[in-house]
């Protein structure tokens, strides 16, 4: 019985994930597991496949082999994704934040938040407005509701992008290098928002180069290189006692 209970806590499980771009194999059999309320930080040099792995979770890329289960249901099994309503429902469990924010430039901040709940869930403006306002307050953007994205700093845009993803009430939030396009002085505000989200036990998978954030906020670290998981562990163990030479070399360069 105990086992079944913990199994139900698994929000995301990927097993044997393989993926190639033409002749280049970018994912060579990756296994990961994320439990409810965990923050998994994926780190590694560029070209290690970490962003691709994240993008396979919501079908922005497709895997060649392996399985993906979201909250116990297969999104992809032996390399084949499910389709139709089931795919849509499972994809709806995830929200994504991009490196380049990707806000809709022709819409105000508030319209960016309202768009998907109204179009996808068919909600009325009045129904979604309270949550949208609450989310803007949470990311500290209440006073910018009527601004266009171009009138905001990168850090502000990214916080709006986080609120926009949350407006669809996802169970798992995926972050693809959310601070990499930001000026250094703006990364702090975005990381703070993410930290708060983690404190509320949102399940998160974060691809990042922010080592201090990973160490402090993550429940588990995965270090990837050349399409493989080189090493994984809890943050203290990982940063204080890395076992693999590859990890040590990477950390020496980063810190």
């Amino acid at each position, binding site marked *: 019985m105990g086992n079944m209970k913990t199994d139900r806590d698994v929000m995301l499980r990927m097993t044997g994930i393989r993926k190639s771009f033409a002749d280049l194999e970018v994912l060579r059999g990756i296994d990961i597991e994320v439990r409810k309320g965990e923050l998994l930080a994926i780190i590694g040099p560029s070209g290690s496949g970490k962003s691709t792995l994240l993008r396979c979770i919501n079908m922005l890329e497709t895997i060649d082999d392996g399985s993906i289960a979201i909250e116990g249901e297969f999104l992809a099994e032996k390399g084949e994704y499910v389709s139709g309503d089931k795919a849509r429902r499972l994809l709806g469990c995830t929200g994504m934040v991009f490196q380049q924010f*990707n806000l809709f*430039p022709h819409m105000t901040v508030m319209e960016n938040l309202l768009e998907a709940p109204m179009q996808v869930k068919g909600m009325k403006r009045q129904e979604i407005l309270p949550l949208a306002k609450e989310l803007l307050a949470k990311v500290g953007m209440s006073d910018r509701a009527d601004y266009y994205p*171009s009138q905001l700093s990168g850090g502000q845009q990214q916080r709006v992008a986080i609120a926009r993803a949350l407006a669809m009430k996802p169970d798992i939030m995926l972050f693809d290098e959310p601070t990499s396009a930001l000026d250094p002085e703006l990364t702090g505000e975005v990381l703070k928002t993410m930290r708060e989200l983690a404190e509320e036990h949102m399940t998160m998978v974060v691809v990042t180069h922010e080592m201090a954030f990973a160490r402090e906020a993550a429940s588990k670290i995965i270090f990837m290189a050349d399409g493989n998981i080189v090493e994984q562990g809890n943050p203290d163990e990982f940063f204080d006692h890395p076992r693999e030479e590859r990890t040590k070399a990477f950390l020496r360069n980063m810190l």
Partner: protein
Amino acid sequence: MENLLHTVVLMLEGTQVTLEIFFITLLLALPIGLLASLGRISKLRPLSLLMEFYIWIMRGTPLMLQLLFVYFALPMIGVKLPDIAAALLAFTLNYAAYFAEIFRAGIQSIPKGQYEAAKTLGMTYPQTMRRIILPQVIRIVLPPVSNETINLVKDTSLIYILAMNDLLRVARTIVQREFDMTPFVVAAVFYLAMTFVLTWMFKKLEAHYGKYEN
């Protein structure tokens, strides 16, 4: 003076034909051009190739030749259209091809991240196009569409060869009859007035859609 007034009245009638061709062509060519551009960028290879071929033919041959073809060659294979319909068919097919290329370039200039953001929010392809992509495309394509639209006003004068009494043909008829060049000047003023109104309208539209920046 009375003569000039008479000329202007006749030419207003010609202008009516010109405007008719202009508006109906625009009304048809814009949506057809949009559909053709979506076909052109479609992943369905046969559809995309068909649209590419259509655009190639329409942009690769003179509009004058296309008009003559519809007007004189189609009846030989049994397709006899009324004059105005023949002109509209040629104009619409020609301008839709140009609009299709303008729209295609506009659509393809929208960053991939916009599609990805919409997709991760659960939006379908039609929703993404209608709500996210096309509103941004409108802003980008307004200047080239404005150009083509102004061209269309002037291109309507090509129906001259189909013996339809448009603005230019009426002017020419009066010039030949009266040995007076004034109708040509009046025609120029009329064309300028039409293009002036269009320029003004597009300026308004660009201001309206330009309220945000990328």
